[in-house]
């Protein structure tokens, strides 16, 4: 297509872009500035600019042409290089050029007193991450070590530093934090989230309530997920529930993402979601798990975990769900107890280990006496069962009062 582009037209497009850039800055027009900096929008104007740049090859001359443009040379020259590479599909070279432009931009941004350009900065933070991800994919595909996303993380920390001050720009810090979370989660270097979380939550310059709602929801979603991975279920419940309560009710995709982590947490503290909820947000992978908990059906829990193993491992909730087995055992024993109570209330509180073995065999699970005794001992230890076991008589003796204490919104004892 460049063959159909004349030099004059190329000149015009580039000069036009430069003009729009400098006008946007001088009139503090953040909407236009956002548009100009957004690479991933793949807008027609960006693509046509890219063609012009690739034809002309030496845009620097045009930049230096007038003072109006040359004052932004440090930003625009690398940005042009980036756009050229981007158009040619060369993401590995596009990324460092964008980072250079972004770096020059934040030097200018620092000098502007008001926070007028904050949304443009958001665009830059977003683009840095997304470009780096694509560059790393390209590196991996060519058998090289991916390193751009790591660099993006360092750059975003720098941006965070620029916003972490007393002025009006500080409300942007949470957006950048969320971009950092996404970078660290992608890289698997999740422990790096700690320092930025500490800054947000303990620095006196920040007041959490001042941040934009959308960023607060994203922040609570990510920090909630971290609590899930660390198995702090009370804190995870609190954060993910916040995200759910303040999330845009029409954004079903976001609600689904939050529920994906909130449901395992709720299950761990004994709260079961309704079938309606699972259907509505297409979280049917949890359906059999909920059923297993209701019925004390160990086989169903294990088969549900196996059926969705990949999905649960990728989202990182597998280990949490696996631990629900203890609650399933509790439910199973409770059912046996109820049946025994119906047959002979005076003897119901004594449960032969053999009976438990039989119930498990009926579910297709083979367990010997030692293991059943062990499970009973653990359930007693964790206060899921009240009573004691008599080794010689191979019997569990349940407490006459409340032998199967409910979790009451608290996780099982560690």
């Amino acid at each position: 297509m460049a063959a159909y582009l004349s030099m004059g037209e190329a000149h015009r497009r580039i000069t036009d872009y430069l003009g729009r850039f400098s006008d946007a800055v001088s009139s503090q027009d953040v909407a236009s500035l956002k548009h100009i900096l957004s690479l991933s929008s793949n807008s027609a104007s960006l693509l046509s600019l890219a063609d012009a740049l690739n034809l002309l090859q030496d845009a620097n001359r045009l930049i230096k042409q007038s003072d109006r443009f040359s004052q932004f040379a440090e930003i625009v020259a690398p940005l042009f290089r980036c756009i050229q590479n981007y158009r040619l599909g060369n993401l590995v070279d596009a990324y460092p050029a964008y980072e250079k432009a972004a770096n020059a931009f934040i030097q200018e941004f620092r000098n502007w007193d008001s926070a007028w350009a904050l949304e443009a900065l958001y665009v830059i933070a977003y683009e840095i991450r997304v470009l780096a991800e694509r560059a790393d994919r390209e590196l991996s595909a060519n058998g090289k070590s991916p390193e751009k996303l790591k660099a993006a993380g360092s750059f975003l920390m720098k941006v965070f530093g620029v916003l972490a001050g007393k002025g009006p720009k500080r409300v942007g810090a949470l957006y950048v934090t969320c971009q950092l979370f996404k970078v660290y989660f992608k890289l698997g270097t999740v422990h790096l989230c700690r320092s930025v979380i500490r800054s947000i939550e303990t620095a006196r310059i920040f007041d959490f309530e001042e941040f934009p709602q959308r960023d607060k929801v994203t922040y609570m979603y990510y920090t909630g997920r971290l609590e899930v991975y660390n198995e702090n279920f009370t804190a995870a419940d609190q954060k993910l529930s916040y995200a759910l309560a303040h999330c845009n009710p029409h954004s079903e995709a976001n609600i689904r993402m939050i529920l994906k982590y909130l449901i395992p947490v709720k299950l761990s503290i004994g709260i079961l979601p309704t079938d309606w909820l699972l259907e509505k947000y297409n979280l049917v992978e949890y359906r059999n798990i909920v059923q297993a908990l209701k019925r004390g059906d160990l086989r169903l829990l294990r088969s549900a975990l196996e059926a969705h193993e990949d999905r649960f491992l990728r989202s990182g909730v597998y280990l949490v769900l696996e631990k629900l087995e203890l609650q399933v055992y509790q439910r199973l024993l409770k059912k046996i107890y109820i049946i025994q109570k119906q047959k002979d209330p005076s003897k119901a509180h004594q449960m032969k280990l053999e009976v438990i073995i039989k119930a498990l065999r009926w579910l297709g699970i083979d367990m010997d006496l030692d293991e059943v005794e062990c499970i009973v001992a653990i359930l007693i230890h964790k206060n899921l069962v009240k009573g004691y076991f008599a080794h010689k008589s191979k019997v569990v003796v349940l407490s006459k009062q409340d032998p199967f204490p409910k979790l009451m919104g608290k996780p099982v004892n560690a």
Partner: protein
Amino acid sequence: MVIQLKHPPNLLSKRTISTKHGQSSDIRPFSVLGSTLDYLMSLMNSAAEPFETVHDFIFDRTRSIRQDLSMQNIVDKRVIHMYEKMVNFHVISHHKLRLRSSGPDSFNISSLHHLNMEQLAKVLTSLYNLYDLNRDHNSVVHKNEPEYRSLYVLLCLNSESLPEGERLSLWFRRVPSPVIKSKEMSFARRILRYFRMGNYSRFFSTIAAEASYLQYCALEPYIDKVRALAVLCINNGGYKLHPYPMAHLSNLLMMEESEVESFCNACGLETSLDEQGNKVLPTKQPAFNHPKAGYGEYGFSGLENICRTL
């Protein structure tokens, strides 16, 4: 520490190369590094010196081999086998240093143990990166990758263990599917499940039946922890009039009977004899405590079988 062994002199002088000043004449070529490493590994079983001396010697020299490899930026398949050997060294040291740490030099050895864990974490991370970098496009995993990946799980049964360690939930996200489905990883995941749930019965029987020597060495520190949990649960949940037979306990916990008795004592519990003269553990004793720094005092009944897998 004086080393009495006779080494090929050029290969093994203690070296630390600062990355700024390493000259190309100082860096050993790949084939030399390979034979050096093989020689070092052969020293592992030498009885001439106490193990911590041998460990220290090999520790420094394998670290310098890694420096040479990384300065030459060798990251292809040839290096994988070398890193696997170095992991073997650190994992087996993990086990052997524990055995040595209830002696007179225990403070020094415990710091060697800690440093060894740190290096092990680094070497494992590098090895996993090498596996990822060298994975073929049809995503066939490297022959030993399942076992070496399983070691991370076993080292981290209790999430806080590995320095700067990634939570297992996060770590599993990036393990390739063929590794997840492998026999070695399935073993590790089951051991993890039994550990987390406190299923001491299956924990021990599964280790005896399925662990490789490396896997055993990696998870060994947790064995006494699970034993303590078992004793705690039995003491707390067992019927007062049915003291628990020690013979049965020793089978359950894969320990010699004499060792079980000493272990119960270390937990603050007393044992006694029943009417037939069998040793028993009375339950509902009030004074349970977790044994202090339970380093390497107690064996594992199935260990000879496991060692055969080496």
